[in-house]
């Protein structure tokens, strides 16, 4: 495969100096162009195991595109993605999930034809054509348990359209958790939530980390993430402008400049 050849040619340390072993997820000089537009501009970063990384940037900064390149929904124009030391650049999205990288969608994508619990059960379905899995009801019990953990215990048998906004976010989370990931990319989890709901969801995410999961949380401002993230990574126009602890980031002059004129970090 072409990706193998690429990584073979790059035996010498790359421009970013990152190596596949530098973290559970390593992006190296990741680049994505659409026609003449560069959405992701040679972005490099590493995420450590059980870390919660905040991936922050103003609207249109290229956060979602980066996300899509990492999770296999887009093929990057150039650059490499290493997951658990393995080159996974350009793998199909379902293969990424099978390798242990789950994601949530910002514009929710629940299946409207089935109940909450059956939405979650789909993530538990084996990728096999002939299977007896689920006949004994164990898939259903596990799906119910995951729903309860994220706080959907009372809405198991509702359809997604009956859920409030916070419920949809929880369902997205439950679907991702059900794939049993080592790394989860969470897209705008707190958008439109009340203070209590943010608190509730923060606790769920922290408990996932305590159980061994690594998390990348995307948001356009950092305010809601302060109690959650260990480290922040700020991008603008597809390139990194700052990286560090939440306190360092808020004081960074480049970040303040990027957010000048309305948006608040």
């Amino acid at each position: 495969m072409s990706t193998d050849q690429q990584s073979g040619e790059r035996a010498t340390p790359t421009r970013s100096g990152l190596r596949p072993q530098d973290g559970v997820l390593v992006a190296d000089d990741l680049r994505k162009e659409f026609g003449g537009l560069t959405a992701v501009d040679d972005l490099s970063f590493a995420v450590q195991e059980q870390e919660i990384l905040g991936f922050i940037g103003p609207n249109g900064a290229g956060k979602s595109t980066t996300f899509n390149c990492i999770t296999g929904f887009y093929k990057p124009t150039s650059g490499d993605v290493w997951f658990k030391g393995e080159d996974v650049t350009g793998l199909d999205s379902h293969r990424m999930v099978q390798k242990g990288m789950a994601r949530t969608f910002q514009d929710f994508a629940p299946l409207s034809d089935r109940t909450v619990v059956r939405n979650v059960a789909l993530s538990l379905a084996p990728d096999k054509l002939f299977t007896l899995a689920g006949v004994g009801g164990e898939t259903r019990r596990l799906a119910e348990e995951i729903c309860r953990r994220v706080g959907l215990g009372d809405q198991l048998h509702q359809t997604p359209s009956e859920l409030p906004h916070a419920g949809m976010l929880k369902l997205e989370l439950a679907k991702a958790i059900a794939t049993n990931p080592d790394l989860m990319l969470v897209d705008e989890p707190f958008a439109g939530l009340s203070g209590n709901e943010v608190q509730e969801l923060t606790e769920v995410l922290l408990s996932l980390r305590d159980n061994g999961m690594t998390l990348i949380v995307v948001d356009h401002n950092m305010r809601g993430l302060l109690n959650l993230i260990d480290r922040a990574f700020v991008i603008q126009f597809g390139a990194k402008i700052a990286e560090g602890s939440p306190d360092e980031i808020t004081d960074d002059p480049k970040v303040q400049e990027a957010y000048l004129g309305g948006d608040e970090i």
Partner: protein
Amino acid sequence: MSTESESLVGGASQTERRQAVLRKLNPITMPLRYQIGLLGLLLFVLLPTQLFPDQMGGPTTLVFLAIFGMSWDVVSGYTGQLSFGHAFFFAVGGYTSAILDLQHGITPLVGIPIGMLLAGIGGLLIGLPALRLRGPYLSLVTLIVPIILSKLFTLFNNGLTPLGIPIAPQGLGGRNGPGLPTQLFGIDGSGAVFELASGYEGIQQTALANYYTALGLMVLVLIVLLAVTRSSAGSVFTAIREDEDAVAAAGLDGAKFKLFAFVLSAVVGGLAGAMWVHTIKSPSPLGILGQDDIQTSIDVIIISILGGTGTIVGPIIGAVLFAVTGLVIGAIDFTIPVVNVAVADLRPLPLLAAAMAVLVFAPGGVLRVGIRTGRRVLASARGEEYEGGPGEDEDSALGQIIEKYRTELREIINERR
């Protein structure tokens, strides 16, 4: 995570699964709708007791149509990949087995499985572009394929020996077909695979054997397709129908499941098509593909929509309605004044009108309406208010298929701008 989740549910054992399957299959404890279904099957078994042998042709055709409908439903009804030319698979199965028998002397007992296999390869050939093509383009492909096949029958009228390989040395027979292949059942001395009694008794037995063979095939197909669609593969199929990104995000290879649905459907269609030509149908473009090489494909869709898309059982009910409507209209001895047309001559217009009515008023099909009505009646008998179960939207399956189709059309149009 994984060790924790296993301890959470205590790990399901083999015995637990076996018990669950047995519980579901116990006719005493199964839900009423399944019991009614079993009763329906029993009626199919008893039907010949009410008919003369020479009346068995209709019911046998009906059973084959039901199988064809089920074969369409598993790919189009479940995954939403609309096929407008499903008779292609029936024809590949039927012609393969017939040519093998007529021109190579291979018994149908071997030819039918080969026909099934070839139809499966056909399913793969159409399923592969389906992975890349969006719905409207795929529909065009499926629409054209049986017409191309029919042209090939005419083109290789007198012989098909590419590179000297005698595939069909005496030709595919054009519009007339390659001739009548060996029958599975026939009277004594007829040369059939299974020769029955002689004389009128033999004719009687042949008609019954054809019917019960078709019925056995229907039950087999029903069991296989129900098992597949009620397993987790079925929920992946319907998820593909709704949102392919969601399938990928669940770690499932949507392409694999789509291809599987196509091949499964083609294999079932090919098997039924091959059995058809060795029992009651002479292989010819008109006989298998139908009028204008497309009528059978359309009938199959109508049957599935009438009964209920995305249900597998629906096409059986649809086929019964299809046949009964045809019978009733054919029996009406009434001439419409002014235009001076006999009602009986209007066939199949009233049936098409019935299909339109179902589309508009009960897009979920007769089966779903029946189940819902039954539940409402049962609930009111218990003195409860029936509010409808979750995910029981009447038009969910067909509505989703159409919605998917519209979205894809819109995408195509936007790209052209």
